């Protein structure tokens, strides 16, 4: 990022001509190395992104307390698009697919794209970094957990309520929580539907 000015020294690439570049700030603590790589790709092409800015409740218990939520990895504000990286084991992919279906059912206006391991691999192939794909896929690409779990295969969701701030000021504490557009459906029905 420090070479930003140098990047403008190409013929015709005056600063006023360049598309807007992402804001320069310290990168967040990514949960997975593939997410960090994706952030670099988005930065490269001048696509603004936010890391895990929103948490969506997707399951409530009978008391109406949120028991499951979904926090997409990236939000691309200029495209109004959420991006979820899924480079983990198949078992966790299935779990994430289920959560995604639930998210789409509850929040139909949200645009979200799931990036599977094969998608990430294809991206790395396109950019001539295929060797990196394997290194950054699966649990081997896991970095220091930032979601309160020592087990890298543990799903990154809050143990109790997504509204509760995580200890130690993790990324969870900085998330805003979007409210579901549904207002009066019985919680029991919601829980039953999610269990299917």
């Amino acid at each position, binding site marked *: 990022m420090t070479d930003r000015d140098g990047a403008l020294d190409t013929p015709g*690439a005056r600063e006023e001509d360049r598309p807007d570049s992402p804001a320069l700030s310290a990168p967040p603590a990514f949960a997975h190395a593939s997410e960090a790589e994706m952030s670099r790709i988005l*930065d*490269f092409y001048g696509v603004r992104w936010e890391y895990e800015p929103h948490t969506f409740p997707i399951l409530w218990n009978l008391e109406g307390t949120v028991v499951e939520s979904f926090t997409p990895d990236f939000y691309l504000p200029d495209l109004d698009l959420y991006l979820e990286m899924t480079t983990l084991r198949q078992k966790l992919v299935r779990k994430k697919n289920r959560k995604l279906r639930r998210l789409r059912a509850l929040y139909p206006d949200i645009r979200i794209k799931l990036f599977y391991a094969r998608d990430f691999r294809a991206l790395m192939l*396109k950019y*001539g*970094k295929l060797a990196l794909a394997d290194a950054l896929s699966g649990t081997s690409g896991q970095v220091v957990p930032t979601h309160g779990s020592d087990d890298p295969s543990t799903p990154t969701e809050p143990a109790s309520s997504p509204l509760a701030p995580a200890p130690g000021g993790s990324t969870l504490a900085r998330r805003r929580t979007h409210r579901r557009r549904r207002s009066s459906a019985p919680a029991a029905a919601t829980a039953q539907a999610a269990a299917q």
Partner: protein
Amino acid sequence: MSRTVDLEADVQDVLVSEDQIQAKVADLGRRISEDYAGRQLTLVSVLKGSLPFMADLMRSITIPVRIDLMEVSSYGGASTESSGLVRILKDLSASIEGDDVLIVEDIIDTGLTLNYLLRYLRGKNPASLRICTLLDKPARRLVEIPVDYIGFTIPDQFVVGYGLDYGEIYRNLRFVGVLRPEVYTAGE
């Protein structure tokens, strides 16, 4: 390079044949000629992959047309590490202000490069800015971009030929083919 490259043998399947390409290019040229009749059209080709498509397409267009070339760095390329931002390696050689501009692409997959180019070229104040691509791979799309002229919609496979490369080779194949996976996994 340690192994001998046999261009055609490295291709698993021919996805779009030379005849299919030529027929499609002729059709696109006819449509573009009709749509832009009486207007000042500038074709902007994005190097290097779109070079063969540009050369064939411009000759199938029957109205007066200007051409220009651009090249931008790709993520993972030599300039990536130094800047972390896309670089315009070759800019337009003339103003496009007031022109009807048609971007000529070889393939659109994620849409990231094209999204960048669109923002850049809009800043040059063309009268209109549209897109023509030989190949569209929608399964890979990250940035939704309206594409006005599409030659072929292809499945989610890694393709080479007719300008498309892997490691800067295979561009000179006269067709578009699926590269054998063992070619790009051999070095892993």
